[in-house]
């Protein structure tokens, strides 16, 4: 990963100097090495601050909307899974191809520092990955975890190491995550519950929501110019002004709004400060769409229309579809 960071810095400098781009989108170190944040770099000197390690989960795709608005050609580093979001934004006409230069950046899975801490590592000073082992250095000694235990949830649904859009690729592709199971396993578990249990599950889950809108802000499919939830005058604007029922409706509608366009990146669930299992609602829509209307992966390319803006004459009726789901 350190090598990749060096390649990134060199590439950023090269592209800026050759005037192929005016700006670079990458990650900058946070307060700790495990809380890197997305950042824009405007000149060659600043590019030395670019970092890349197992803690750069954020998808930079959405920042391209701003780049398009400013009409500034921007270099963006994209992990394989991030490229789906970029395609989706292109399809939704939210970004323009001429304003960005995509550099495919290899990824071997991002780690979840919360999981590492929950497993008992305190005052982490260093984390290194060796194959499928994660070695965590602390002042109290070294701890070793299996990578599977501490990977981000979204990386457990890894889509592989192919870039769906890239002007060039940095270095060699890395091995994709090997412990990807059935990404719908959690959805199926809920489907297997009784109606009462499902209701109780969602009531418990969605009651945690503080309506910070982080899930909306991070989502590459949720990119409306104006959003009803920003309107302070609207009764649905914020938690304080809202009826409690709005929480459930908010999540239902948020998930519905991106149905057919959700790339399944899992960012909504990752950024949720309350740990609401939001991604399950999106995954449920993806699962249903696949089952009712044929397999579809949003963001696979920038042209195939979403299943909700297309139809077949012999689609199942609503009741039939629900029963057929089994």
């Amino acid at each position, binding site marked *: 990963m350190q090598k990749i960071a060096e390649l990134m810095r060199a590439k950023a400098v090269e592209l800026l100097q050759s005037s192929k781009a005016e700006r670079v989108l990458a990650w900058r170190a946070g307060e700790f090495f495990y809380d890197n944040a997305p950042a824009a770099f405007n000149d060659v000197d600043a590019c030395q601050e670019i970092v890349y390690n197992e803690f750069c989960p954020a998808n930079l795709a959405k920042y391209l909307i701003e780049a398009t608005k400013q009409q500034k050609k921007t270099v963006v580093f994209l992990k394989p899974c991030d490229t789906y979001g970029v395609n989706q934004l292109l399809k939704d006409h939210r970004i323009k191809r001429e304003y960005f230069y995509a550099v495919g950046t290899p990824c071997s899975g991002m780690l979840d520092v919360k999981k590492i801490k929950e497993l008992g590592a305190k005052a982490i000073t260093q984390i290194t990955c060796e194959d499928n082992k994660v070695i965590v250095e602390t002042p109290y000694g070294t701890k070793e975890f299996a990578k599977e235990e501490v990977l981000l949830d979204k990386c457990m649904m890894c889509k592989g190491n192919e870039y769906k859009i890239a002007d060039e690729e940095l270095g060699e592709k890395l091995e994709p995550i090997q412990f990807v199971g059935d990404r719908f396993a959690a959805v199926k578990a809920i489907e297997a519950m009784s109606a*009462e249990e*499902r209701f109780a599950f969602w009531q418990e889950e969605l009651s945690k929501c503080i309506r910070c809108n982080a899930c909306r802000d991070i989502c590459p499919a949720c990119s409306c110019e104006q959003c009803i939830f920003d309107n302070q005058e609207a009764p649905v604007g914020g938690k304080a002004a809202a009826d409690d*029922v709005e929480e459930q409706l908010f999540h239902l*509608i948020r998930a519905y709004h991106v149905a057919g366009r959700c790339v399944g990146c899992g960012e909504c669930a990752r950024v949720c400060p309350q740990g609401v299992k939001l991604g399950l609602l999106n995954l449920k829509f993806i699962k249903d769409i696949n089952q009712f209307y044929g397999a579809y992966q949003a963001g696979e390319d920038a042209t195939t229309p979403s299943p909700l803006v297309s139809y077949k004459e012999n689609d199942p009726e609503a009741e039939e579809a629900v029963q057929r789901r089994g």
Partner: protein
Amino acid sequence: MLKDAAKFEPKIVAFCCNWCSYAGADGAGTARKNYPANVKIIKVPCSCRVNPMFILRAFQRGADGVILCGCHPGDCHYSTGNYYTRRRMALLMSMLNFMGVAEDRFRVEWVSAAEGAKFAEVMNDFVVQITALGENVKLRDLRCKK
């Protein structure tokens, strides 16, 4: 006739498309087919005008059942509107089920302008079904823990 106060009278919202189902309701009237007054019709230009939020809002504001009626697939006044409706509503229905909320309070039916009798039949049947299910508590009370 005075209604028995103790008897549960469901509130039912029917979204009907202007071109087929609303005319179907008219047809039911002209043909003197009865259907219960529990059904309150809201006319929409096309069944695909109905946003999933309309359905959810109707439930939240006190409807016990919501039915969406449109032209038969292939007969849409705008050619294809109801095909989109069909996909959207299938997903919504499945999601209501997934959230543990009874999806049988919500129905999608295709009723043409010539099907006055079918309109009355569908509405009678739906009122019976919702009366049997009783008052809608969950969808109205789809709220956080207190």
